[in-house]
């Protein structure tokens, strides 16, 4: 495979292979936190930050694991390090931005079990990205997650004013909306691939 340029990685991950809408990663927070625009944006920012931290950790860990030929420990070490990183972020945020900490509430610790975060770590390893590529990949994944979250929140806020039949309300409606968004994002397919 030809080495991908940084722009290709960024655009491809942000739009064409959007983590939420094309790869189905991070659906729990996507469906859970996308009720209001005010919480969607900070949640996206926090996840992006954790992704970046996780990506850096994973890059270093992967080097260690390969160096000592302990590949079977890769998954376990990734998840433990990510969990600790989230804990650290939580503590920092509690100290320096209590308002944001309260706003995010329960969803902050849940970032640990956000498959998008582990997904970043696993995919960058599988695709053998170098350091710079990993960083760009993590930022693009986070930005894509935030984009999907904010779009969805906007749609759902608008739908609160609409007259929706009772049976359709709730998760079913969110999933249909997500399907439509995902259909729209398919229009980006091929972007970043052909240069």
């Amino acid at each position: 495979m030809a080495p991908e340029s940084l722009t290709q990685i960024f655009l491809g991950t942000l739009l064409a292979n959007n983590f939420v809408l094309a790869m189905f990663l991070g659906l729990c927070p996507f469906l859970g936190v996308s009720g209001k625009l005010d919480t969607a944006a900070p949640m996206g920012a926090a996840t992006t930050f954790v992704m970046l931290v996780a990506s850096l950790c994973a890059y270093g860990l992967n080097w260690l694991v390969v160096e000592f030929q302990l590949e079977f420990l890769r998954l376990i070490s990734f998840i433990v390090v990510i969990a600790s990183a989230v804990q650290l972020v939580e503590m920092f945020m509690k100290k320096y931005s209590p308002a944001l900490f309260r706003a995010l509430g329960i969803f902050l610790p849940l970032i640990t079990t956000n498959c998008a975060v582990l997904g970043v770590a696993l995919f960058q390893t599988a695709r053998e990205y170098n350091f710079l590529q990993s960083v760009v990949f993590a930022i693009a994944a986070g930005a894509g997650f935030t984009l999907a979250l904010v779009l969805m929140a906007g749609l759902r806020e608008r739908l609160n004013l609409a007259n929706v039949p009772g049976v359709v309300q709730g998760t079913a409606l969110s999933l249909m909306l997500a399907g439509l968004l995902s259909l729209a994002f398919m229009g980006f397919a091929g972007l970043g691939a052909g240069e």
Partner: protein
Amino acid sequence: MALPGKAPPSTLDEFLEGLWRQNPVFVMVLGMCPALAVTVSAVNALAMGLATAFVLVSSALLVSLIRKMVPKEVRIATYIVIIATFVTVVDYLIAAISLELYEALGAFIQLIVVNCLILGRAEAHASKHPPLPAVTNALGMGLGFAIGLFALGSVREIFGAGKLFGVSLFGPDFQPWVVMVLPPGGFFVLGAWLLLFSWWRSRKVTRSPLPVGEG
């Protein structure tokens, strides 16, 4: 069911809870990421469902066995390490059984670790119950999850490719609905299943004789 409902739930009840009443896919809507990502065909869906069920059952057993030894502060970390261990086992197992399947499922086998269903069950059920009920409950949940995935995967394969388990159903003239195998199809099919379930439930509620007047 002739089971006495309330009191301590019987073993059968524990089992049925996950299989039907609290079905992880259709009722609780947990563990969506693998549910949508790999259910392009019935075989993939079934493999993913069974792999998840295996991790669910074995981690429930282990968590339940050591539930009195683990200090409360580090329990989540302990559970995650246990789950990650079993996922690694499954990862190598699938690679050994079928390389083709392994490639198709890709990173999503390893992503079983962060399936909220497994951690949720370990925390909410297995850590508070002795091994037998914990395992029964996990088995029910696991099978419920596998059935849910199979329901998604088979619908997507039937419409998306006109096949089921690779066997052509409609003959050569069938025009496949490509969108079903693409990401939007996953959202639409799951949404449609949920619609069906909520319609069915609302129908049951309006039909059953109500003890008190409606609101």
